[in-house]
Structure formats: C-alpha cells, structure tokens
C-alpha cells in the first residue's frame, strides 16, 4: 500500500523533499514506517526525537496505517 509522508523542518531536509510516497506492506504500523524511514534515510536516527502525526494528531508506535493515508513526520519541535 502507498502512504504519503509529509515532512517539516529538519525532516524535510533529510527527506530532501516536503513529501513523498512510500510503499509499505498492508497494516504497517507507525513503528514499521519508522523502520523503513530509518533504513532509507539514516540521518533520522541522529534526531533527538521522532514523532508522527495522522489527522493532525500525534499517533503512537502501534497506530496502524491504511492505504492512502497522509503521515506527517514531526522532528523535535522548537517553538516558543
């Protein structure tokens, strides 16, 4: 299945793009997506934290993705 990955901040620099499509096995979780990303873009492992959002909400590792979903990579925030 294809999910769309959107990236902000340093995640966009690592991805070298503001978004991309990733082909995953059915029922892949956020944890599974993270593994794929770390394999393809090892620089993600250097970040202080790596969170993911779906539907404008943070999701935990066990969240199961479905085809066509948009997942936003949230690197360490630094607002304020």
């Amino acid at each position, binding site marked *: 299945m294809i999910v769309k990955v959107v990236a902000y901040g340093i995640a966009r620099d690592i991805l070298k793009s503001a978004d991309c499509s990733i082909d995953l096995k059915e029922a892949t979780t956020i944890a599974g997506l993270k593994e794929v990303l770390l394999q393809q873009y090892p620089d993600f492992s250097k970040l202080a934290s790596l969170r993911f959002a779906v539907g*404008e909400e943070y999701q935990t590792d066990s969240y199961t993705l479905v085809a066509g979903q948009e997942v936003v990579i949230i690197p360490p925030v630094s607002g304020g």
Partner: protein
Amino acid sequence: MEGIDIQLYDRKIIEREVEAFVYDPSCGGIVSFVGKVRDATQNKQVLRLEFESYEPMAIKEMRKIAQQVLERWSVKKIAIHHRIGVLQIEDTAVVISVSAPHRKDAFVACQYAIDTLKETVPIWKKEIFEDGEVWVAAHP
C-alpha cells in the same frame, strides 16, 4: 471555546492585543510570558531566524493547551499568539497571557502553557549564521 484566543501569523506580535483579549473585570491579575529571539547561540552571532509550522496541527495543539489550562486552574481567559516566518534578533516569537481572579492560578497556568507549547506544538526554528544554519533542538 469561550475564553480562548489562539493565533499563528507572519507579522509582528502586538503584546497589548494579546493581553487585551484576556482582560476581564472579574480578574485582578494577568500574567504574561513574552518569548524573544536571543542574540547568540553558543557564542555564534545569529543573523536571523526562520520559524515554520505545521499550521493546522500547531493551532490544534495550542488550543488543547488552552483548554487544559481552563479545565485545570481557575483561569478566566488565555491567549496564545505565535509568530512564524523570518524573525530578527529582539523580535517577539510568542506571547501567552492568562487572566485569573487569583494571581497564583495565572502564574501556574501561564508557565504550564509555555512549557507544554515547547514540547508539543509543531513549530520549528532555524537559526541562520554567517557560515551556515541549524534547526534548533533537532539533535541531542
């Protein structure tokens, strides 16, 4: 929800506008936090900063903080204005104002709001130096 004013924009923050929202005749005290852009990081001169956000989620997360504040403390109103775009040294990046009948609630709630904002709200700050740029807090 009544009593909440959340804004994210690419223009100067006018502090008295933020505070004006929270003022209420029943409240004796207003506590405000103003976050400014500092002049140097590790003794390197910062030329400018660029703030970006995942806007709809940033607003949602700021609204959550405001709702938590109104639920947890005897607070009348809260306003959070965050700026994005290009900021210069001395510019205001964020203003949080809280009004409450009793000042202790206003202090605790305002501190909770800025502490939580810095942990959860998807806003990113890039420092631009003469010789490069750094996403703040990205690396351990």
